[in-house]
């Protein structure tokens, strides 16, 4: 196993992109084939990572360090712990699936399309493995441009509006986050006399609570818009609805996770006293619960199939952030697992919408009905995805939601009580959607004679279904891999919170 495995994983898509640029754009088949080869290679090189990852070790593994901009203290510093290794795997797998699923659906400007996907792939992996804050920020912003194009060029009728809205929202949050990063950087330099963006160095900072709170809100805007948490979610339904299928899949499965990952990796460990501050925790928990319930209720009202799935994301991501701010082992571990689950099940749901959209070119729910008679295999896959998303035991969704609720219950029973309502609503809108589209008689003439899943579509769904069952039946490996890093974060948050509570004056004095 090479020592620079992470760099290989990071740059495989980019290298593939550079080669892709030399393929003439008239060679459509060649372009498609090459993009799939690169995506598959990206997945293959990430396999040794999970196989060789030692879950019993503390700290980061596969660390690579090189000076990048020495006069600013910026390093090319990458590494993974249990949380990021799962995110990297999620990215490489979903990237492959998304690119593969575009085979038939993208018929124009293929070269640019696949180029954008590969660029985005590198950006997303970079976000999850950066241990240098500025490096992280650069990857974070890098992801925006390809997604803008994916939505803006290959999207639906209102694609330009959705694309720029996505861009403006997430960028506005991003630059404010940059201010927070720069504040930490500067504070570190004044306390230790050395300019660095290295996260483990920044963790040594001892900041007064007031400043931590300001920085927390700066980070919050960056991450919460990305997640998106209520009330910053309004870009999401537009972006999801207008994006091409594969774009929606990546957006839901990986891009949104950058926000929740940011909370776990940066907000909690870097700003422990602010993250455990009672007011802040309450505000975030309440926003999460509003997100859960609001997302679910709005989903119930949707006429548009894809928009329904989009709003369900708001609800599911609400669970993830609630788990994080329960600030205990099961809450955070559950949140990470739920993030993967959401990637699998919502990814599947978007793919399912994509399948029918390609056949009928409409997403109106009332256009459909009784599809189970016409496309039985499709109905089975949909049922599977729906149940996984709704959290049926023995499927993946249950594991995540259950653990999060357990964590929330430990933190505050009222939160758990409200969140459980979200589970019920979730089952309601999904089952109702299924009933309206799949069950009953075929009411619309146009739906008769629709072809069932072809082999390519099967090839997309089967791995996801297997993965869903695997997590649902045997989630232990995931909990094992998450145990150490999550315990570290929880420990850090509570330990610092206690010292601050016991001796606030001392900390104040020390930080001056």
């Amino acid at each position, binding site marked *: 196993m090479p020592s620079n495995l992470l760099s290989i994983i990071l740059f495989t898509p980019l290298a593939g992109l550079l080669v892709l640029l030399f393929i003439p754009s008239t060679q459509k088949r060649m372009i498609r084939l090459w993009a799939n080869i690169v995506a598959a290679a990206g997945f293959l090189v990430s396999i040794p990572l999970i196989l060789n990852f030692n879950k019993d070790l503390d700290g980061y593994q596969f660390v690579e360090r090189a000076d990048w901009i020495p006069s600013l203290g910026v390093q090319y510093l990458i590494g993974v712990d249990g949380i990021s290794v799962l995110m990297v795997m999620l990215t490489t797998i979903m990237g492959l699936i998304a690119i593969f699923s575009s085979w038939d659906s993208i018929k124009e400007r293929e070269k*640019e399309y696949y180029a954008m996907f590969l660029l985005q792939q590198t950006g997303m992996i970079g976000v999850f493995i950066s241990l240098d804050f500025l490096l992280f920020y650069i990857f974070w*912003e*890098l992801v925006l441009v390809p997604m*803008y194009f994916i939505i*803006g*060029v290959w999207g639906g009728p209102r694609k330009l509006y959705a694309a*720029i809205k996505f861009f403006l929202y997430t*960028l506005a949050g991003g*630059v404010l986050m940059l201010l927070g990063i720069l504040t930490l950087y500067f504070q570190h330099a004044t306390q230790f006399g050395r300019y660095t963006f290295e996260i483990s160095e920044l963790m040594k900072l001892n900041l007064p609570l007031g400043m931590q709170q300001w920085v927390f809100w700066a980070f919050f805007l960056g991450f919460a818009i990305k997640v998106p948490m209520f009330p910053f979610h309004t870009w999401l339904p537009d972006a999801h609805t207008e994006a091409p299928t594969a774009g929606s899949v990546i957006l839901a499965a990986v891009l949104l996770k950058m926000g929740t990952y940011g909370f776990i990796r940066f907000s909690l460990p870097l700003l422990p006293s602010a993250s455990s501050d009672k007011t802040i925790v309450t505000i975030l928990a309440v926003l999460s619960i509003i997100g859960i319930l609001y997302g679910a209720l709005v989903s119930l009202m949707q006429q548009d199939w894809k928009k329904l799935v989009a709003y369900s994301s708001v609800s599911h991501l609400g669970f993830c952030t609630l788990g994080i701010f329960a600030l205990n082992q099961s809450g955070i571990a559950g949140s990470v697992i739920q993030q993967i689950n959401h990637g699998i099940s919502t990814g599947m749901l978007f793919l399912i919408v994509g399948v029918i959209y390609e056949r009928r070119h409409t997403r109106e729910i009332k256009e459909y009905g009784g599809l189970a008679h016409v496309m039985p295999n499709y109905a089975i896959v949909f049922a599977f995805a729906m149940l996984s998303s709704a959290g049926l035991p023995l499927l993946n969704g249950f594991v995540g939601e259950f653990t999060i609720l357990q964590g929330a219950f430990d933190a505050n029973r009222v939160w758990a009580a409200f969140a459980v309502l979200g589970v019920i609503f979730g089952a309601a809108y999904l089952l109702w959607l299924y009933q309206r589209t799949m069950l009953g008689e075929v009411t619309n003439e146009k739906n008769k004679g629709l072809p069932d899943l072809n082999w390519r579509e099967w090839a997309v769904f089967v791995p996801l279904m297997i993965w869903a069952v695997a997590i649902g039946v045997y989630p232990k490996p995931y909990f094992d891999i998450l145990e150490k890093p999550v315990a570290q974060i929880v420990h850090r948050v509570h330990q610092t919170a206690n010292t601050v509570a016991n001796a606030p004056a001392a900390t104040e004095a020390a930080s001056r």
Partner: protein
Amino acid sequence: MSVYYTSTDHFVLLPALLLALFGCATLLFDFWVFPEAKHRRWLLIFLVLGEVFAGVAYFRQQMFLVSHGGDLSAFHGALVIDHYALFFHWIFLVTTLIVGLISYRYLEVRDEHHGEYYGLLMLAQCGMYFLASGTDLVTIFVGLETMAISFYILVGFLRSDQRSNEAALKYLLLGSFSSGFLAYGFSILYGIAGSTRLRDIAAAVSTRDAWNPILLLAMATTGVGLLFKISAAPFHMWAPDAYEGAPTTVTAFLAVGSKAASFALLLRVFIGPLGPARPSWEPLMIGAAILSMTIGNLAAVTQTNTKRLLAYSSINHAGYILLGLIAGNPTGIMGVLIYVLVYTFMNLGAFLVLTSLTRRGLAGEDINDLRGLMKKAPGHALAMLIFLVSLAGIPPTAGFLGKYFIFLSLVETGHYVLAVVGCAYVAVSIYYYFRMVKAVFVETGETDMPPLTVSFGTRVALGVTCLLTLGIGLYPEPFLRLAQLSISR
């Protein structure tokens, strides 16, 4: 040599001398040696030659400074060569070269190809030399006027174009107005110090209270004059008209060269002699910065002419650069230098792409003329994307680096509100930059448009600006070193 013209004086002045000589020679050559149109390329080659000579002179100066340390003062303190000045001189040199290279084809297409153009470019650059190197009010003022007068002519270079004439007249009127302000401010400074040397003025200013009324008057008039030159709001009114009417190549030169030179002067005057008066000028600068960002951004949103759009965007950028001056600590000054550097390349690049859109019978200045560029000229389109993303300040392009330093300096000096305002306007600016991106990549243009005509010079210039815009972003270390050297005194 006599005491009036020592060898040091010669060494310091040499680049400016060369530029002036080559500039004047170009005017004469155009008249006597190469009067025919087909020989005009020799004038361009002559310009390149002049720049090479000037470059060698700069290089020798730089080597001297590196080996001997300190700076070189000449003419009894009227001119100085330090790393700070050289930093700007290199920027002027590259700018003039690139503008010269892209002008050839553009002027042919617009049927206004006259040899004096190249001479004027070099004379303007000669004026810029004195702005960055001058340490005496009279020297500075003469340099400023040399540059400004060359620009008045260049802006109106399209003689048969009504808009170009209008732009030149507007620029002339408002420009001389601002020069008047500046001269007034300079005269009061002279009154305060009894000397026109900046270091004497610095000594005189430091003994006075920052709110001393005479000093305040001097500061305000000087400040207003300079804010005019950098086109910061509320003294920006000339910029959109001048930018729109001027030949696109001149617009690029105006937006980049003239602005960089004025910033070089602004920084030298306000950090140097007027530094002790910071309490009184800081509010003025904060107001100008916020207004520039507001007006620049909000007005750019509705523009349909790309040159006007970039004019407002340059007002916005002036606001950001002012923020670095407001912070005023080493990071802030560094931010100004880096920002000016990256702004030079990304803005030149953007204008360059616009220039290549100009074809016979098509001005190529409407935002819709960018449509379908991706299909017609993918190379240009990708370069434009890099420039626009960089102008918006998104990593990993060079534009991010400028914003990074500005924001960091604001955080360091506790100007949090300004930092947040600056951040908010980054998001606004995305909107109009991406209107151009949208036109280039998403929308499709009419297919019967004539193809782009791209000369060899344009190709080289595009390659250089593109490479630097991306390169400074990806590996900024050498450029940071250079800037760091410039601010270490």
